[in-house]
């Protein structure tokens, strides 16, 4: 009897967990941040670092997830990105990085053709999420 009660509770907790997982945080949980570090070196590291306050040709990506677009004070953004009224959520990064940057944000200085490998994109975003 006790066993059956515990089983129901566990099933409810599992269902509730799955609902939460599907509702909001799937991309981060799907990605492997360690693998994303390699993707970052391959795709991003020439123009960006994840060091706080260290800009290269592109701005620092430290704490990028949750940051408002064009908001690093000492980086000289394009007008296109200065005027981009969005926050870099994981979903926004997924949308932005899965296509050519100039298609996503016409007028940006960023020359990036986009990452079309879904697994690598998830891993990369998980890595960016981990840099806070």
């Amino acid at each position: 009897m006790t066993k059956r009660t515990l089983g129901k509770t566990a099933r409810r907790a599992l269902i509730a967990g799955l609902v939460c997982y599907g509702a909001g945080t799937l991309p981060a949980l799907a990605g492997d941040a360690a693998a994303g570090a390699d993707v970052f070196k391959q795709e991003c590291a020439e123009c960006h670092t994840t060091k706080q306050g260290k800009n290269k040709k592109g701005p620092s990506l430290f704490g990028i997830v949750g940051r408002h677009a064009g908001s690093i004070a000492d980086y000289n953004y394009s007008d296109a990105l200065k005027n981009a009224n969005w926050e870099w959520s994981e979903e926004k990064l997924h949308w932005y990085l899965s296509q050519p940057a100039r298609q996503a944000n016409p007028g940006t200085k960023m020359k990036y053709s986009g990452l079309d490998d879904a697994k690598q994109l998830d891993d990369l975003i998980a890595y960016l999420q981990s840099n806070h």
Partner: protein
Amino acid sequence: MPSFLTRHVARRAACAFYAIVVALLMFAHGQAHAVPAYARQTGSACADCHAGAYGPALTPYGMRFKLNGYTDTDGQGTKIPVAAQLVGSHNVPARGDSTTQLTEADVYLAGRISDHFGGFVKVATTNDGNDHFSTKLSNMDLRFVAKDLKVAGKDTIVGVSVNNSPGFDDPIAALPYASGLGPPAVSGTLLNLSSSHTLYNRVIGGGVYALYDNDWYGEIGTYNSMPTSVQDHLGFNTASDPGHLSDTGYFRFAYMKDMKRQFFSAGVVALTTKRQLPRNAPSDDITDLGYDLTYQFLGNRENIVQVAYVNILEQRDYGSTPIVNGIMAKPRGDAHDQTLSVTYTFRQSYALQVAHLVSTGTEDAARYPPFGKPDSTANMITLYWTPFGKDDSFTSLANLKLAATWYRFTRFNGAGSNIFGAPPGGPVTNAKDLDAFTLSASVAF
């Protein structure tokens, strides 16, 4: 017994050889294109543009920086476009005395003037032996570039380069004047920096270049040799004057593909000119035709492999046919230079480079005594360590390179043994006697 003329030519060949060895050592040590001034300007690490964080071999990102006229920036104010390099070395030749010396001290003026103007100028003070130093204008590449153009809907860059070595401005940087690597040659091509009377740094010219759709590169240009008085003022020994050039054309076309984890390129190059050497001599019609293939595995930058093969054939229509020892020189001839280089770089810090260098030419008993062959074969093996110049190293804006290099010769002047044709009982020099080992330390800041 060899005639006076034969002995004279052989002596010239020997002098030329030792000059080539010295030049090889200098090129191997002095080629620092990972100029810290660029790192300060862009915020990038040396290793972003150079797999081994010191150069000269470029990563695809480094190629784009060069194509953009050295103008890319982190947008954080004007940086002073000056850098310096010091090189010290311990040289151990197979024959002769070992030396330890300050080999070279360089000043670089390198960086952007505006979004459209940038450049690379190197002034080198080199140790010519016995601590006798000379200062000369070394490499120069001044550029105007128009970026972000669209042609038929595709990204296009158009630029103008003014430089002093045809091919030095090449983005792929596999051609000898850009890579600093060419076979030691008795009769090398005009595009080989190890040839006697090389054009390297002794000419002025340039051309218009374009990169279309990120992949297709083309360049057309022309050059003139500097007057001997100008060469003298710029610090060059006029005995190595490349001669008077006229009707000179330089052409380059290449396909290059950057796939982030890998890169490959295939290109062709041509140089055609009429050369008078000495300047009052009849002119030789010379045409260089070459191709180059490169491949890079970059991956996550932990293990990088770079392979480059360059093959240049030079066709000569001589203006004169001198008679040497009763033999008339041929009116036409070829020179053929080939370079294969493989470099493995671990963690952008530890690298092993192996190069196979071959120079051959048309047999000509009058022009190439004593064997009538100008052929040479050599190898260069370099192991080096560059501790800095990465994003996560002590400094990303300066660097140190510690290198051990072995030069190995298996053929010179057309022979492996008795390469200068010494008579029986005379001092014999074999190709392997020209081997050398060197340890060097270079610091750039």
